[in-house]
């Protein structure tokens, strides 16, 4: 009996290893994807996975990428980080050591991108995070200099926070603002602090600066405090799954001031969860699906025909991340980690579906514009552009 069990276990282990390696032929380029497929922001992970699969399918349908004298197909290896920082790190570890990928795309939220970026940096594998806007993601945690192996497809929060603060002051003519943000999350905290600094520098006053922690559902205490401070506008730099609760509770407490948000609002899920409560509010984000140029329109049409939904910013940025990677692979001309990283770092400018990205020497952060969207008739509509 015991022997049979041991035998079976051995068999299973062998099968697992064999399954993991059997398709491992040399004519494939392996790219890892870490996405938030489950956890608190699954819509982000789903968009990321969809766009990644579409980008890879396009390349493979065209026969693959020309490396030297041979065409290579891309094999996408998808890992779920379950919306957890530790699983993001272990997913990156697994992709690097076990799957031997040539580069990694994702994770998206900054609090997951940070640990994965650390692993990629120490494992010397290029990682592009599509959506993480926190500056720290591409910075070395010890020296504060730029990481060598970490890149992103989006702008960073010092820019975005400034854009929102100036829009709030100049276009919405407010002078008294309140902020409610998740103090336990890298992205929310970073952008809230930048907003505060820029808003106050430019003559505004922050009358309430309130916090909560991830997974809180009751904001009544903080919102009552905000009501007491009588702001003209309330900034909520929080994820799409929490914002509707905050706005609904605020309205129930009799708060009439409008709200404003940032790129973490930009999921179609927000519209579903909000109902009509978010009507008329503005937020900053990476691209506007309704004010797109030629290449972007083609991307949107392809995505729609594949998934019958409009791609959100995460989808567009993931697609651009793969675009960058494709270009880097073609330039590098070989299926090699270091060569791909060097080619990525050498790209000066890339025209993506989310606009023009310009990379400065030695930094993984692109310089690109932001857009301000307005929620009108239950849809995200373009309102303004903000240049860097």
């Amino acid at each position: 009996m015991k022997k049979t069990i041991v035998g079976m276990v051995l068999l299973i282990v062998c099968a697992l290893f064999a399954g993991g390696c059997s398709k491992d032929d040399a004519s494939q380029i392996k790219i890892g994807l870490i996405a938030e497929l489950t956890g608190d922001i699954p819509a982000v992970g789903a968009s990321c996975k969809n766009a990644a699969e579409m980008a890879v399918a396009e390349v493979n349908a065209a026969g693959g990428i020309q490396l030297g004298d041979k065409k290579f197909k891309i094999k996408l290896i998808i890992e779920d980080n379950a919306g957890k920082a530790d699983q993001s790190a272990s997913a990156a570890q697994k992709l690097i050591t076990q799957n031997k990928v040539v580069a990694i795309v994702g994770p998206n939220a900054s609090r997951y991108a940070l640990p994965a970026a650390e692993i990629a940096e120490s494992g010397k594998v290029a990682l592009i995070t599509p959506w993480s806007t926190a500056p720290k993601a591409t910075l070395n945690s010890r020296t504060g200099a730029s990481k060598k192996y970490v890149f992103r497809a989006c702008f960073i929060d010092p820019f975005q926070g400034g854009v929102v603060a100036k829009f709030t002051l100049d276009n919405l003519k407010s002078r008294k603002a309140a902020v409610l943000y998740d103090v336990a999350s890298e992205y929310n905290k970073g952008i809230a602090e930048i907003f505060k600094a820029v808003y106050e520098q430019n003559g505004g006053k922050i009358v309430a600066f309130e916090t909560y922690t991830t997974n809180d559902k009751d904001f009544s205490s903080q919102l009552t405090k905000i009501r007491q401070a009588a702001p003209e506008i309330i900034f909520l730099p929080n994820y799409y799954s929490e914002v509707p609760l905050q706005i609904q509770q605020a309205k129930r407490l009799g708060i009439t001031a409008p709200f404003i948000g940032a790129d973490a609002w930009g999921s179609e899920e927000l519209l579903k969860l909000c109902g009509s409560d978010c009507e008329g509010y503005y937020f900053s984000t990476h691209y506007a699906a309704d004010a797109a140029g030629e290449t972007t329109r083609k991307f949107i049409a392809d995505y729609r025909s594949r998934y019958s939904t409009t791609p959100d910013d995460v989808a567009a940025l993931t697609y651009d991340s793969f675009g960058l990677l494709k270009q880097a692979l073609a330039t590098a001309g070989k299926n090699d980690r270091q060569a791909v990283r060097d080619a990525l770092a050498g790209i000066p400018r890339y025209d993506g579906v989310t606009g023009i990205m310009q990379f400065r020497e030695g930094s993984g952060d692109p310089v690109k514009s932001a857009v301000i969207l307005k929620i009108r008739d239950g849809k995200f509509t373009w309102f303004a552009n903000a240049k860097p």
Partner: protein
Amino acid sequence: MAYFFQQLLNALQLGSIYALIALGYTMVYGILTMINFAHGDLFMVGAFFCFLLAVYLKLSFVPTLLLSMLGVACLGVIIERLAYKPLRTAPRVSAIITALGVGLFLENFTLALSPYPKHIPPLLKNVTWTVGELSISSLQVLVIVLSLGLMLILDFVVWRTKAGMAMRAISWDKTIVPLMGVSVNKIISLTFAIGTGLGGAAGVLYSLAYPVIDPYMGIMVGWKAFICAVVGGIGNVRGAMIGGFILGAVEILVAAFFPSTYRDFVAFTLLLVLLILKPYGILGRPQPQKV
């Protein structure tokens, strides 16, 4: 002053939900001396029942509430029969680990069905009354009144009915009570049904008050309700209610008068101090009269 009363109202709403969930922990502990760590997840299942009934069957508030309570109560009884009963004589630690396992199962089962957060449609028209500077929403009143009502009914059942007397007797002495002709299994099932049913009711009320629900929503709320039960004196029904309102008040009022970043830190320090002064909880005694 209006600010203080507004915050007090917020505290009452949060506290009454904590109290409803804490009751489930305390009742099960009272009768089985076991901590049902799956209770927070049963609360989550209650919220998902509410979502299914309200969205797919388009039921109105009262049938949604009753059916959700019934559904969660049945689930609670089934879980007790399948998972806890075989371990009734096993060490308590094994039973607690089983409970944690059941909780994880419920979370991941819901997660496997759909990982997306769900929006609960407004089942009742919400009206906000303004009294002076105070904003009172009809939803707030409903949550508070319904919770208090359910607690009063429970208190009546435990202290004034035969079944309640049997529950209290079992918590005193499990070996003697069957000799008196009481069916222990039936009473344990009943206790589970009532305790988890209240958790289901809390799930519905919670998802009306905070209408975005997800499979992980029960974890933190469950832990906090467990703390309420301990602070009130675990095993004591009235203690759990008091504990719920205390934690609700502490959480809201700390954030109201200190920077909100310190909320959990100050709230839980206060509760620790309270437990140092009263190690068995507010109404608990070393040999307490349970449930």
